[in-house]
């Protein structure tokens, strides 16, 4: 169960095949995965997020990285 990081994916991403592929490939700690064609986050890897922002560079405001400890 992730304690420190949550990643929100805008529903609009699901219709962009290239972006989904980019997100899976860009994340250095495998937070994104394809599940039946939908892009999802892998709960076991969320806390490994290095805050590198590669996903945000790829998706802009369609992906949001939330630091749960900053609430």
């Amino acid at each position, binding site marked *: 169960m992730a304690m420190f990081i949550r990643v929100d994916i805008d529903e609009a991403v699901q219709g962009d095949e290239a972006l989904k592929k980019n997100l899976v490939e860009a994340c250095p700690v495998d937070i994104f995965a394809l599940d039946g064609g939908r892009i999802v986050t892998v709960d076991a890897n969320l806390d490994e997020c290095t805050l590198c922002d590669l996903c945000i560079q790829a998706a802009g405001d369609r992906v949001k990285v939330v*630091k749960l*400890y900053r609430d």
Partner: protein
Amino acid sequence: MRLYEFEAKEVLRRARVPLPKSVMARTADEAAAAATEVGGPVVLKSQVLSGGRMKAGAIKFADDAAAAKAAAAEILTITVSGQTPTGVLVEERREVVQEYYAAVTWDGRAKRPVIIFSDMGGIDIEEVAEQHPEHLSRTHISNLAPLSDYQAKVAVSRVGVTGNDLGPLTRIVAALTRVFVERDMTLAEINPIGKLADGSFVALDSHMDMEQEARGQHADLLRSLGIPDEDTRMARPPTEFEIAGAKVNDADTRGIAGNITEFDGNLGLIIGAGGGSLTLFDAVQSAGGNPANYCEIGGNPSVAKAAALTKLVLSKPGVEKIAVMMNVVSNTRADMMARGIVKGVIEAGFDPAEKIAIFRIPGSWEDEGFAILRKYGVEFVDRSVSMHEAAARAVAKMATT
């Protein structure tokens, strides 16, 4: 890793250092045969990885094969500092007219190897250094430049050795120094070098420690000495806790959680960074604390790895709190460590605010790390608090619980 005397002497023999004739024996019968092969009076020396053999009665003398067999049978039953002998070195007994000491080791302050030489060998060299400093020389050598025999000559002559003794002693010290450098030793020692009545010299006892990390590089040497890969040469077999620690490290290639060593104390340690582990372990002890373990964490471990190590340390019976302390980090991230440690504590079923005595990992991404620690109520400090002060605070907290 430490070499047995018979192995160290084989290394010296290959380096052309003169030695008394000797044969290694694993049983009393072999010792009798060895005594016959060596011929004449022999000395039988227990092969253990610690000192104190003479005091323990594990060095004996014999004039013939029958006496050698009896002596070996007795030596093989004697444990020295808890160690069972791997065999007995049966060596030609030589009468010496003077004993010398030679060693090469690493000088941590000078950050260079140092040749230590004395004309008072055969006794505790620390005692010589304290009581007879004029009989001991320290000669530093370069890490990079090739060794010149002249440097060995300087080391020997500094204690007043001259004339016919200077040449042979110089050759022995130069050979010893080359072994130290070429074989990545942390210590290469001959004590004593014996001067015989005919004016020649022999290495009577030797002690060598090789860098553990250099084993792979010197696999050829170790193989030729008959040392198998599984022979770790550790002072004792690893405990279940230590085996579990090694598994934590091996399970995830990201970063390091290494050298996890079990102790009997109540303060678990998650420590590391640039030699910080040793300093912090000593600092805890200096402050009167009782470490439950030693470890070396660094190289930016994953959150999962830091959490696994934390859970392991907390699972150890008797551990009341953990102290998380590192030197100033650059490649390791303070926030990832904070996540891992807090997660490990919570997954172990404890409250981070209560279980973490102190968190001191200053450096890269520390603001994010501090935000995490603040949220979970963990006491943390930055680099303005020294490692010693942080250790003292952790120990003080143990006293109040």
